[in-house]
């Protein structure tokens, strides 16, 4: 177990290094003059010299690369052009905002989805099953940003039930992050975007769970449980579901990666001050250091989530090998 975790951890660091390298060369490819990416206009000569020195811009490309890796390792991403402040401080808060929206939505999807999937398998051949499958596919097909727009239009503007943008109603005072989120006002803001994300992601675990359940239900131990006279609900949710959960966990790891990227549109639609919105704005204002850091952090979040899924997976199935499920992307 420990060996497995260490192994996965090393793999994660390796992947992170590859991504950092790709990003470094991508930026050099797109911006042959790296000072453009790090030095904003109107910087004093002293500051310019400081940035040049800190990022090794006066040295050769391989040396720049080494300096870049060192800077990333120590959390030095430069200064944001737009905010004129250290990037690290800006993104730190945004990451928290992103996670506080993503994690609840993701948990809802991967708790409700499999439970519904069991129900669909249980009610096999019924109208409920057909309706559930269709609904799952339809919600997966509707782009999240569009559903967000519709919900804002209906519940935010027409009915006025929910706020339509941001995390809190302005103006507000919060001494620190938890002070900000442990309020009813925050929950009120959280509801609509959470619904949007959950609607989109619930369909897949539901369908995968249903398929896996149908496979498991044909096996001997289920028949044995039935012969023992256990109740149908108990068989379904205790015996069959536990054994059908593996592909869902695999999918959770993959979806976590997709969700970090998909989160961007939701944050844009709801003006949620997270990492995605920050990156979106950074791209529009050509704020290179901020965009770079935001991207790295998103990749890092995916890696950590994948790592967590791997560990869970290892606990569930000692054989640990990736099976393939049609995720679409």
């Amino acid at each position, binding site marked *: 177990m420990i060996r497995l975790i260490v192994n996965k951890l090393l793999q994660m660091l390796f992947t992170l290094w590859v991504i950092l390298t790709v990003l470094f060369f991508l930026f050099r490819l797109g911006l042959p003059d790296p000072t453009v990416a790090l030095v904003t206009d109107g910087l004093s000569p002293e500051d310019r010299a400081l940035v040049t020195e800190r990022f090794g811009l006066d040295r050769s490309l391989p040396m720049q690369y080494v300096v870049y890796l060192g800077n990333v390792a120590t959390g030095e991403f430069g200064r944001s052009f737009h905010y004129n402040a250290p990037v690290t401080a800006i993104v730190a808060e945004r990451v928290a905002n992103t996670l506080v929206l993503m994690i609840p939505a993701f948990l809802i999807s991967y708790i409700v989805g499999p439970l519904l999937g069991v129900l669909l398998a249980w009610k096999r051949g019924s109208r409920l099953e057909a309706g559930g499958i269709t609904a799952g596919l339809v919600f997966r097909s509707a782009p999240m940003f569009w559903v967000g727009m519709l919900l804002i239009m209906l519940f935010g503007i027409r009915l006025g039930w929910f706020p339509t943008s941001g995390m809190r109603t302005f103006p507000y005072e919060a001494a620190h992050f938890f002070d900000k989120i442990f309020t009813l006002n925050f929950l009120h803001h959280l509801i609509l975007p959470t619904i949007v994300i959950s609607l989109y992601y619930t369909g897949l675990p539901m369908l995968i769970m249903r398929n896996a359940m149908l496979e498991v239900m044909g096996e001997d131990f289920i028949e044995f449980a039935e012969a023992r006279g256990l109740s149908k609900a108990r068989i379904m949710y205790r015996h069959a579901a536990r054994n059908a959960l593996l592909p869902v966990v695999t999918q959770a790891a993959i979806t976590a990666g997709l969700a970090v990227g998909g989160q961007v549109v939701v944050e844009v639609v709801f003006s949620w001050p997270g990492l995605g919105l920050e990156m979106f704005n950074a791209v529009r204002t050509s704020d290179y250091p901020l965009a*770079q850091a935001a991207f790295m952090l998103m990749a890092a979040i995916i890696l950590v989530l994948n790592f967590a899924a791997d560990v869970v997976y290892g606990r569930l199935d000692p054989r640990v090998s990736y099976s393939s499920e049609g995720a679409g992307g």
Partner: protein
Amino acid sequence: MAGSTHVSAILPKEQGAEMRETLMLLVRAVKQDRLATFGIVVIVVLVLIAAFAPLLATHDPYVMTERVEGTALWVHGDRVEIEAGIAADTLYSVSADGPDSYFAAGAGGEVVRYDGTEWLPVETPATETLRAISTVEGRSITVGHNGTVLWLTGGEFEQVPAPTEVDLFGVSLTDTGAALAVGQNGTVLHLDPENGVEDWEPLQAPVQRDLFAVALLRADYGYIVGARGTLLRFDGEQLEEVDSPTFRDLHNIAIFDESAGYAVGERGTVLRYREGEWIEEQGALTRTLRAVAMVSADQVQVVGTHGDMMRRVDGTWEQVRTGYTRHFRDVTSDGETTVVVGTDPYINSLARPSQEHYFGTTHNGRDIYSQVIHGSRTALLVGFVAALMVTVIGTNVGLFAGYLRGRTDNVLMRIVDIMYALPLEPFAMVLVLLWRPGIHIIILAVGLLTWRTTARIIRSQVLSLADRPFVKAARVAGASPLRIIYKHIAPNVLPLAFLQLAVAMAFAITAEATLSFLGLGPPRLYSWGTILHQARLSGAWRTAWWWVIPPGVLIMLSVVSVFFVSRALEVIANPRLSRR
């Protein structure tokens, strides 16, 4: 080459038979599944829409559609009320015919009359555009293009033979029956009441410029305004040019008495007549002013384009906020009630769905239905090209990793893992940040990143195929790995690859819409995502549901159709699933 002739002579036949069988299976699977049938129908319809988009679109999706409509605006103090659609086309002029009774004339020879309760059309023999109307004590005269002159006597309009061939822009009638009409190239026509209504006498004007309006106080006192600041005085017989303080076009003039008058024109120009002199005055507006009406020497109303209106009260000009952006053409006022007519073509912004615009219009009057129709091309094209790229890369990676195994497999699967760690939308954003938004960025981002799933699925299929007897036989016969992969294994994963193509296409359509929605798509090419992007940028999406719903429904329909069909195909492509 000679050795392979024998084999290839047999293979195509066998493969052909197998293909036909697979095809039959496909058709049956789709037919049995109602959702899949629905999906196929929708996909075919969408492809047809994309193919015939130029024929199906009712408008050019880039053109801001304009609307022309005769409008009246009532102003009572600070209360503004609009009556739209009282005439089919622009109304150019309005004149009062006593209290609560008005005439308005406009394009296409149209005249409408307000009788105290509503605007009613009045029959006229004219077909030319009528530019001005003047009414005094029950008699009206209206003039227009190509020398059109109409008299209203006894409730009916009568056309008199055109006294000139040029367009007439202005007319003024006095209570004695004397009248002046002005028009193109310095044309001035004078009517002496003693000579009958048809006998117009041309007057020699000191300028050749277009004359736009005339105001007569009496038969021997009046002023004419025209292009480039032209100001002419009429003394009953002759015209005399007076010093003008401006070089801008003057569009309208009003005379209250011999000591008070106003003229208005281009760029908010306001001229005031005082003590025998015209002087420029600072108004409250900066765009073109079209008409001026005087109630008293210091109570003046002015209207202009884009819904502009201002009034002079107690010696200062103040803007009247009408809340409309239509172009106003003329104004008349009795102090309490002010009537404004006009509406040149105006941009038909945020119109609700109608016969004319099935899905309504955008904030700058573009037809949303046509945008959605044209957008289907981009969506399907980008979806298909990106999906093809994904399938080609993914299938090849899967084939090599699955067949060669060992180190190759390890390296390739490590790359797949790395791909899974790159978030698509942010990756596309980085590309746009470094280069420029465009269709290629979207295809590139989707194509380079999302082959990971296809690769994994094909690989696991290849792993199970590689141990099958026919592969072993080929290896024993000395076939090269490349040959085995492409000749023997690839045909067997082809159905699965096609299924992945379908799934990848659904994903690519969503991805294209998402990236275009974020503004990372081509700026001058419509796609469903771009339409929603523009709706978001305009801010109008919060209320303009007709702008938001249609493109989203089409994205959803196309994606869900692919899902429906691919579910039915899964059974064939992956026989493992059939027992479920």
